[in-house]
Structures are given as C-alpha cells and as structure tokens.
C-alpha cells in the first residue's frame, strides 16, 4: 500500500515537473534573459576595470557570484506570478495534495531552466574573466548548490510578495540579507580554489544549505502562498 502511494507520488512529481518545464520552454525569453544579463555584465567588467588579466582573475570569484545572485533574483521575481494571476495557484491550494509537496515540481523546473543552465554556462563566463581552468570544477559545484539555495530562499520571498503589485523591490529587500551567507560561502570556495587552498569547507557549508533548504523551504513557501491567497 505504501509502495503504491510512493509510486503515485513519484509519478505526480515527475508529471508536474515535466509540465512546468514545458511551460518554461514555451516562453524561452525567461530562460535566456538571465543568461544574457550574465553575459552583458561579464563583458562590461573588463571594460570598466581595465584588461589586466591578473587583476580580473583576482576579482572573478566576486563578480561571477554577485552576477549569479542577481540573475537568480530575476528568476525568483517571476516565480509564482503567472500561476497567481491565471488562478492555477488557487486550484493548487484547493487540491488534496499538500501545497508544500505540490510546489516542489515548480521549484525543480525553475532550477533546471535557471540555476542549472547558469551553472553550466558559468565556466565560459569565468574564462572571459581570466579564471584559471583549475578553478572551474569548484565554480560549477559551488554555483549548482548556491543557485539551489538561492532559489529556495527566493521562492519563500516570492510566495509572500506574489500578491503585491510590483513586489520586485520588496522581494529583493526581503531576501537579499538571506543571500549574504551563500554569497560569502560561494566566493570563499572559489578563492580557496584559486589560491590552492581547500574549498571543501565552504562547499560543505553550501551542501548543508541545500539539504536544510529542501527540508524547510517548501513548508515556508506553502505558508507564504496561503498568506498571499488570503486562505
């Protein structure tokens, strides 16, 4: 019996994730925009700082992580808006499936089309800033985990502000303070990798963040959505 319901839950999650990915792919601009933003900033920084490769490489961890953070903020601002406006969200809240479970497919789809794509494109951007190839694995690993944490945290803020007209600034104010530890850990891991130190501690911190976020954020997101829907 429990096996059966376990399979059903898996089917439900995979089916819904596929639906959300299909929705994201139907409006590709929302996937491309954060990438384009990333690219623009990475092109502009060398113009502003001067083309000295050593100085750029020194600053690359900070630049890459700040831009990834801001791109992630762009993704979070759109997160529940469409579903709120067209009524899908209240249907989701009415359904017998707990809201904390039924928001997970949407988060997963948003990460796959957002954070995952950013993390995989980041080595290219890193090389444009003169980041040594030896630091690339740490860059990708730290961004994979960092974007997941930032999406989970951002989704809590997005859930709370989705009912607010032009809630973008409010969202940024709410969640930027929560992003700071992630930013510090991420740049720290990259710095260590650059100066042949040990990035494991910072990466472990990010890993712990993902685990904790996966456990707690869906509950907070569900509660936030209920507030926004005035349930």
């Amino acid at each position, binding site marked *: 019996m429990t096996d059966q319901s376990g399979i059903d839950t898996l089917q*439900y999650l995979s*089916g*819904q994730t596929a*639906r959300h990915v*299909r*929705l994201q792919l*139907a*409006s590709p601009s929302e996937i491309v925009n954060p990438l384009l933003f990333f690219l623009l900033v990475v092109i502009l920084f060398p113009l502003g700082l001067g083309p000295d490769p050593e100085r750029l490489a020194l600053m690359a961890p900070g630049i890459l992580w700040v831009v990834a953070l801001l791109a992630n903020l762009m993704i979070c601002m759109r997160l529940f808006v*469409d*579903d709120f*406006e*067209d*009524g*899908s969200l*209240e*249907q*989701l*809240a*009415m*359904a*017998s*499936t707990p809201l904390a479970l*039924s928001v997970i*497919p949407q988060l997963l789809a948003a990460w796959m089309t957002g954070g995952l794509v950013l993390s995989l494109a980041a080595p290219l951007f890193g090389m444009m800033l003169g980041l040594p190839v030896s630091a690339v694995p740490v860059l990708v690993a730290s961004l994979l985990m960092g974007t997941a944490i930032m999406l989970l945290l951002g989704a809590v803020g997005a859930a709370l502000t989705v009912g607010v007209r032009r809630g973008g600034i409010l969202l940024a104010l709410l969640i930027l303070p929560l992003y700071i530890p992630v930013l510090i850990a991420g740049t720290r891991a990259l710095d260590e990798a650059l100066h042949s130190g040990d990035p494991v501690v910072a990466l472990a911190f990010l890993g712990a963040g993902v685990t904790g976020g996966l456990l707690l954020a869906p509950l907070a997101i569900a509660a936030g959505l209920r507030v926004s*829907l*005035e*349930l």
Partner: protein
Amino acid sequence: MASELSVQKGVRALLSNVSLTVNQGDVWQLAGGNGVGKTSLLRAFARLARIEVFGRLERCEDVLYSGHSAALKGALTPRQNLMTHPSGLNAPSDLAIDTALEAVGVLGHADVQTARLSAGQKRRVALARLFLPSPRLWLLDEPFTALDVQGVNVLEARFLEHARSGGAVVFTSHQSAALGDELKVLNLEHYCGD
C-alpha cells in the same frame, strides 16, 4: 452544506445567515446583482476564503471549482492545458480530451496556442474540464460569461446530465438560466449583511 453562514469582506458584512443544502442531483443558482456576494459565497464553499467566513460549513472533499480566472496557460495548447488539471490530479486519456474538446466545439483549435483563441473560445476550453472525469460537486463562478447562445445550451444540457448522474452543481449568474424545474435559485439579495 452550509448553515447560517456569514461572509465578511474587510469590515463590511456581505452576507449573513445564508443556509444552503446541496443534495445529489441538485442544480443551484446563486443569483443577485453585482457585488451582492455571489463570488465570495462560492469561494467560501470552495474553502478559498477562510478568514472571512463565519458559520458552519460542511463539504464533501472533492470539488471542482472554476473561477473568474480560468487557470489556462496561454503558452500551451488547449490539449496540453487539459492534459493536467492545474491541481495536478487527473491525467485523462487522449480520447477523453478529444471528446471533451469536441463537446464544447473547440476540437478544431486543439493544437493552437491557447493565447491566440478568442475570449469565448478560451472560456470553452476551460469548460471542457466539465466534460472530463470530474468530482461530483461543481462550484462554477459565472460559467456563462462570454459564451454564445449555442455554448450556453451545451453547458445547460451538461449541468442536467451531471445532476441526473448523481452529481450536483452550484453556479453563480445574474441571468436566468433555462434549466426548467430542476433549477433551484438562491437569491442573495435577501441575505444582505448591513
């Protein structure tokens, strides 16, 4: 289903002491002018307005609620829209989807982006959900909006069919529906709060 229910919006009491029992086979119309509280009451029945409702509310677990916003994705085709309900629960067969789309007369547009359809056609796609396997109790907010005469007839026939097969329908509308004897009307003008 509900007895002595009061609905408040902010500090203003919208409705007080409304009682309504919906049995199998019932088709109820919540009538009344604009702003009288039809939608608020319907949302209360759907448990979508918990804060503002006082009184006793007993409801069977599964309902189908269709509100002002149709929960359709403009970027998907009508067929893809029907494939999963926004609540994520039913995944009807392709045949069932075709039959439902045909019943509401939009089968010819099944593979066009929903955003390109007219308001009435979108409405029809949303209402096609009523022709798929669905819960017994339907709560429909202004289902006749933007429909042409033929669409209204199809929908009314579907209401009666659903009621006769043991279901129940509660819908809001300010026009009188041609549903004959089986229609029961609850006029909310008589329950105004203030």
